[in-house]
């Protein structure tokens, strides 16, 4: 067999063990802390572990049936009535042992397609899906064993189950109906209408080329039009659903027929309030259907304990369907229900619950004081909540689910931060939130710790111990940096410091605007935080910086496809400055056309697919009568530009600058030839590994690029606290962050920078040739925005943090730094404190975000070879935690290759 990259490097005397600050023990080291959940949770978790991601047509069927009937209705009311019908007709299913009930769809891990957003996939796949459905006979043992590789993913059809997008299973009996429902939306969906109108953008053809060549990852207007934001549970908690309907009815009387000085959308308030009433009534019916099911089960149940529990479930649901909750359990069930209702209203990932430990604290405090609740009972409910959240799937196309989300839906819970008055907001319930995250370690909710110097030390140490379970959470986010960003960005919309303190993480890592609302419980007032802004990660999504560099080097031509993506710049690129200037021009051209086309997609979405329920929850829609589509939220400057491959691009620019222009070791044309020939290696696709370490030389390679390749690899690299590469990062950030403000969203506000890669560093790397930093064709980019490229950070975590904090992080919505640490490096209490100290050091330097993957790389390799033995192994990917067996191979390879710190 041809030599691997690692062997080639070893021959050259370069160690590629991907370890730093020490040497890992020979034997695999497991995580230090392993905790167990309550028995009830364990049993339900056992069901989850055997559960396949499943979809059916109930919701889309009833939605479509009602929507098509109402073609003469005002659009927002038409949509609201369709939603009401769909919620009302969902089948309730309650699993034995559940306390927090209700699911998105009638499966443990259920979801459904929304063809009104995008139907093209099902119509295009009609024949394939239909034939597959028709030929399905009885299931064989062989077929049942096929899906093991994917954990809960239905990676292939089997028995009477059809695999959709390699992820969701659907019964064969449902497929013909899905296809027929989808056909009803042809020409009407956001995808179709958006596509029709975005073609009217003058340089639309460039956009098509950008998408075709994976310079940009996906269109957010019809894939995931909402999300990456913080929900707000306040209004139902304070007023109850009947109270909200009462408010809406009163407001209808006030606004009917009145424009109130707003000649454009003032009249719409009447229809919006009408829509709110319809949707809330639908959600009430949905809850009451579950209550009815609980009563049915109560009547049939022979076991006394279980019968009592069904009765408690019914009582809880019957109450919260109409009234504000009175207890911790009722409040928890209510926010759980609201959360699922929002996720059923639209295709959403990253609908974050926010600071639920603070939102639920009033009920917790009063129940504990009254003796109605013990901390252990609260802990059990928090553990159960993790099961509900991990069971949430988002039905979207393969490209989105696999390439971007890695199957996660980012329901992030935030803890810590400051209260309204600027004091630490940590409370006793938040300690339990952390404990539940350790005792029921599941991918969701992932935890964001809003770090501030004022937070209690024992809370931080507990957080470090949770990280050591291997769950990867909590991640640490810098409260001060977030506040600075928010005040800078939302100041023009009226944000002040008190309100900035109400922020939380939306999605996996998006700083999201919040506000305080006064919750009243038994005569006491509590100020609780909640989201009050638009989706915070919608807009120009995932532009590949290394691909823009490739296009710059090759005169606008994609070297994988041969297509002329941008007009040729025709420049000789004789100086680094000329190359850098052209890079920026291509970047701006891409962002500009993507912003325009994206705005059209989202405009179509807001005209036909209004978020009625989610809007109603957020301040200040109920007060002003406008939904999200009419700037009803308090903060609306929330569209962004997202980058991918930052460090791969920075390292590449550093290598070019050093080798071509400073040291003149090679001319640019020769360099480009070497890149195109992949330095004599096979491609990652040929090797079927996307890790740099596993790449193999071509059999016919004569070694002519070896010297240059070594020089590329040894060129200055970001992450070592050395100015050469780090200065390029600084130049990039000082260009990129303010440049985002040059693009206007459909809401008439400037966009802002967002620097997370989610899983796109795998998919986008797969479509990009070798890069000047020595990375080989098809392999992943460095993950996140500030993680070092695997194996290139050799000076320890503090040096990496110095490099990462060279720029002002408050210019951006976020930045992202992932660090992999061997479990033995942070062993014991002393190790936990080391982790806290390391984190504090980064935060004090001005870093926004850091998260840790505490895992032995050898275990990951073993798990890749034996996935069935590691069904419950979790890893931190890029802002989220996921089961190892449910992430794609490219990202698995990249995770294995990340530098592993053996000491801190």
């Amino acid at each position, binding site marked *: 067999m041809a030599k691997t990259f690692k062997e080639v490097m070893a021959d050259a005397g370069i160690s590629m063990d991907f370890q730093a600050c020490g040497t890992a023990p020979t034997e695999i080291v497991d995580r230090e802390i392993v905790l167990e959940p309550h028995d009830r949770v364990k049993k339900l978790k056992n*069901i989850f572990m*055997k*559960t*396949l*991601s*499943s*979809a*059916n*047509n*109930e919701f889309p*069927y009833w939605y479509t*049936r009602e929507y*098509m*009937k109402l073609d003469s209705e005002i659009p927002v009311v038409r949509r609201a009535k369709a939603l009401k019908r769909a919620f*009302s*007709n*969902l*089948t*309730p*299913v*309650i*699993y*034995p042992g559940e306390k927090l009930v209700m699911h998105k769809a*009638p*499966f*443990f*891990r*259920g979801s459904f397609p929304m063809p009104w957003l995008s139907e093209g996939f099902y119509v295009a796949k009609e024949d394939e899906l239909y034939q597959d*459905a*028709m030929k399905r006979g*009885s*299931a064989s043992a062989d077929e*049942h064993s096929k899906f093991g590789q994917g954990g809960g993913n*239905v990676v292939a059809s*089997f*028995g*009477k*189950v059809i695999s959709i997008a390699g992820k969701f*299973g*659907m*019964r*064969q*009996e*449902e*497929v*013909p*109906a899905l296809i*027929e*429902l989808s056909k009803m939306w042809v020409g009407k969906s956001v995808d179709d209408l958006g596509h029709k109108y975005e073609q009217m953008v003058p340089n639309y053809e460039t956009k098509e080329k950008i998408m075709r060549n994976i310079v940009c990852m996906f269109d957010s207007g019809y894939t995931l039009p909402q999300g990456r934001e913080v929900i707000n549970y306040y209004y139902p908690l304070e007023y109850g659903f009947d109270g909200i309907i009462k408010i809406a009815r009163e407001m209808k009387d006030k606004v009917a027929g009145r424009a109130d000085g707003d000649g454009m959308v003032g009249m719409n308030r009447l229809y919006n309030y009408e829509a709110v009433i319809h949707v809330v009534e639908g959600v009430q019916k949905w809850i009451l*259907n579950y209550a009815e099911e609980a009563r049915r*089960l109560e009547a049939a149940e022979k076991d006394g304990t279980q019968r009592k529990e069904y009765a408690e479930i019914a009582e809880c649901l019957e109450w919260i369907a109409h009234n504000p909750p009175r207890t911790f359990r009722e409040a928890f069930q209510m926010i759980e229900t609201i959360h699922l209702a929002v996720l059923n209203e639209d295709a959403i990932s990253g609908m974050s619950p926010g600071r639920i430990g603070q939102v639920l604290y009033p009920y917790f405090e009063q129940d504990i004081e009254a003796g109605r609740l013990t901390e252990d009972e609260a802990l059990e409910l928090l553990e159960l909540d993790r099961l509900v959240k991990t069971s949430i799937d988002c039905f979207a196309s393969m490209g989105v689910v696999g390439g971007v989300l890695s199957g996660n839906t980012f329901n992030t819970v935030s803890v810590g931060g400051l209260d309204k008055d600027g004091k630490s907001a940590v409370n006793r319930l938040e300690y339990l939130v952390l404990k539940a995250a350790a005792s029921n370690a599941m991918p969701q909710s992932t935890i964001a710790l809003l770090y501030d110097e004022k937070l209690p030390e024992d809370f931080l140490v507990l957080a470090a111990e949770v990280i050591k379970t291997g769950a990867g959470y909590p991640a640490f986010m810098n409260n001060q940096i977030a506040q600075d960003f928010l005040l800078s960005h939302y100041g023009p919309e009226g944000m002040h410091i008190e309100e900035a303190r109400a922020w939380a993480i939306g999605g996996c890592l998006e700083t999201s605007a919040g506000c305080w609302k006064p919750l009243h419980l038994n005569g006491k007032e509590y100020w609780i935080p909640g989201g009050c802004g638009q989706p915070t990660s919608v807009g120009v999504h995932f532009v590949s910086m290394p691909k823009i560099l490739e296009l710059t080097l090759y005169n606008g031509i994609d070297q994988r496809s041969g297509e002329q993506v941008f007009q040729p710049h025709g420049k000789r690129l004789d100086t680094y400055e000329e190359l850098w200037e052209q890079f920026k021009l291509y970047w701006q051209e891409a962002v500009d056309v993507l912003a325009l086309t994206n705005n059209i997609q989202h405009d179509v979405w807001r005209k036909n697919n209004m978020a009625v329920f989610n809007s109603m929850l957020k301040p200040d829609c109920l007060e002003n009568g406008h939904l999200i589509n009419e700037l009803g939220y308090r903060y609306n400057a929330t569209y962004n530009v997202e980058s991918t491959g930052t460090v791969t691009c920075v390292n590449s620019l550093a290598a070019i600058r050093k080798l071509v222009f400073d040291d003149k070791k090679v001319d640019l044309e020769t360099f480009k030839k070497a890149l195109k020939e992949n330095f004599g290696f096979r491609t990652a696709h040929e090797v079927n590994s996307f890790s740099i370490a596993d790449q193999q030389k071509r059999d016919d390679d004569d070694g002519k690029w070896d010297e240059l390749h070594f020089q590329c690899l040894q060129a200055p690299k970001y992450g070592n606290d050395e100015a050469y590469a780090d200065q390029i990062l600084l130049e990039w950030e000082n260009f990129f962050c303010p440049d985002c403000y040059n693009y206007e969203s459909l809401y008439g506000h400037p966009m802002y920078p967002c620097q997370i890669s989610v899983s796109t560093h795998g998919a986008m790397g797969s479509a990009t040739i070798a890069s000047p930093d020595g990375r080989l064709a098809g392999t992943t980019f460095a993950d996140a925005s500030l993680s070092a490229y695997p194996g290139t950070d050799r000076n320890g975590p503090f040096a990496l943090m110095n490099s990462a904090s060279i720029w002002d992080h408050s210019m951006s919505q976020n930045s992202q730094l992932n660090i992999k640490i061997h479990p033995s490096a942070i062993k014991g209490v002393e190790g936990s404190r080391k982790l806290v100290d390391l984190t504090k050091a980064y935060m004090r330097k001005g870093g926004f975000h850091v998260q840790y993957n505490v895992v032995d790389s050898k275990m990951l390799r073993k798990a890749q070879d034996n996935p069935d033995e590691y069904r419950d192994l979790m890893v931190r990917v890029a802002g989220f935690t996921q089961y190892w067996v449910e992430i794609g191979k490219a990202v698995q390879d990249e995770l294995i290759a990340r530098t592993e710190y053996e000491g801190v």
Partner: protein
Amino acid sequence: MKLEYRDTREFIPVDVDKGIDRLTGEFVQADAEAPKGYTQLPKCKFCANYVEEASFKGICGASTQEPKFMAYGDMTAITCEMFEAK
């Protein structure tokens, strides 16, 4: 009448392939035959208003729009106020 588990009210659907028998607590295949005496689950295919026209789909005779709206036999109808057992 023989029923598959997935057509009974005693079946708790976990996913598209399997579920739990509420009476025994055991995991069962959705397509397996349910024990005698299990209760039929309301589904369109058991509804007097449903007319099957092609494989796995037909129309709902209770729909108020014209032409009558599509339906599919396998849809659970316990929340459908128009369900009428055949």
